[in-house]
């Protein structure tokens, strides 16, 4: 019988269960990521954001919350223009962060390639 509703998986983040190994990897690559204050200026200035949904603020947060897939999906929309680095008030080298993360993932050979999805969407 269909009552018109169903259960969907909880969207809650359980900090006790999440895997932070990727976040620690990111800290290792670019230790300044720790001082991100989530102000969103990187996302606001992002060239790719309107077309691809790329938001570096959300990428960093997603990795802090153990949501790697979301982060990779978004990061694939980055065109490495570096505007986010120019506006970051905490001076985080965001371009280096993004490039290093993509290289890290590429090294794992998950088939994610920088910019390949952006081209399709534009």
């Amino acid at each position, binding site marked *: 019988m269909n009552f018109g509703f169903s259960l969907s998986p*909880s*969207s*809650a*983040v*359980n*900090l*006790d269960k999440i895997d932070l190994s990727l976040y620690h990897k990111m*800290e290792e690559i670019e*230790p*300044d990521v*720790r*001082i991100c*204050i*989530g102000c969103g200026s990187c996302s606001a200035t992002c060239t790719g954001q309107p077309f691809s949904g790329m938001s570096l*603020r*959300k990428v960093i*947060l*997603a990795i*802090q*919350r153990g949501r790697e897939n979301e982060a990779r999906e978004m990061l694939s929309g980055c065109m490495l223009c570096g505007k986010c680095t120019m506006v970051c008030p*905490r001076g985080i080298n965001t371009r280096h962060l993004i490039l290093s993360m993509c290289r890290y993932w590429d090294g794992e050979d998950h088939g994610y390639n920088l910019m390949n999805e952006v081209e399709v969407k534009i």
Partner: protein
Amino acid sequence: MATEQSPKVSTPRDIRKEERAQRKAQRQGADAAPERKLEQVIIIGGGIAGMEATKQLLSLGYRPVLVEKEDHLGGHVASWNRLFPDMGDAQAIISTLREEIMDATIYLSTEISFCNRLRDGYNVMLSNGVNVLARAILMSTGFTLFPAAKKEEYGYGVYDRVITNADLENWFNGGDDHRIPSSPKAVGFVHCVGSRDLKAGNPQCSKVCCITAIKQAIEVKEKFPEAEVYCFYMDLRLFGKKYEDFYIRAQRDFGIHFIRGRVSEVSETINGSVQVKAEDTLSGRPIKVVLDMLVLMAGIVNNPDNAGIAKQLSLETDTDGFLRSADNILSITESPRKGIFLAGACTGAKTVPETVAEARSAALSIHNYLKNLQ
């Protein structure tokens, strides 16, 4: 040579030295000849505001009478351990101030029984039977910490692992607290407990809790390097000197996690830890975490003891619940009543340096007021 070319000029320091010597002679003279008495000023409340004002009034040549209800001076600062932004020793500040006011009349464990207005001053009866006449009174009656148990959803006084900022400082000071685990794996701080909370009766920001939480989070991390430390905040209001540096250090050097979202509820787990739930507003998702210790940053609210004295002196309360100043910009240290002055957190939440500066300012206001009466 320079010393030969220029005649001996009295520097402000020399002048102050001479004045001090004169006043000392005056005081000694006053002992011998009782008709030459120094003017008394009553200071109600022996926290840092009262102590600093006492010190300044002494050096301005008055005879301050400091009245403190507790059996020791120093107020809230006396029970604190280290102070931001330089992690200075709170006890050292109190001892320095105490040494500087040795010459003042200090009544401990004493309250105000009643006070009434005379033609040109006030008559204050103390609970120890002493009667003090003075033309100026300084209210430095301070604040109280918001009673955290009022926020029932946070479980203070119900769950064993929930403590307050004051409890944690007491423990830093070497106090015993069975609620603090020996090796916690996760510790949380809840900002704004009883602050910016209209329903809890205090819509004001308590100003000092953000930086206190960061200070205490760093101290917890220093004591328990293995622990994950989370701060749940609404906004981080780091307005003061070097506060932002403190925040950056907390993030960069101590890896403290800042989660923007107010804790909605706390519940106990089967093994006695606590689970907190909040909204991670930056990701728009609910978040939960099990903690071995939860610290509630109780805010600054008006001291209820003020009400009695305020009534007798016809002082009003401002819309924020604290004592009303004559003007909130130009005359914060003056009350609307002649001869009654205000200093420190009795007019609202303040940091230690702000309180000390205000106490100095109040002493000067008193000095100018009394000078103009003559």
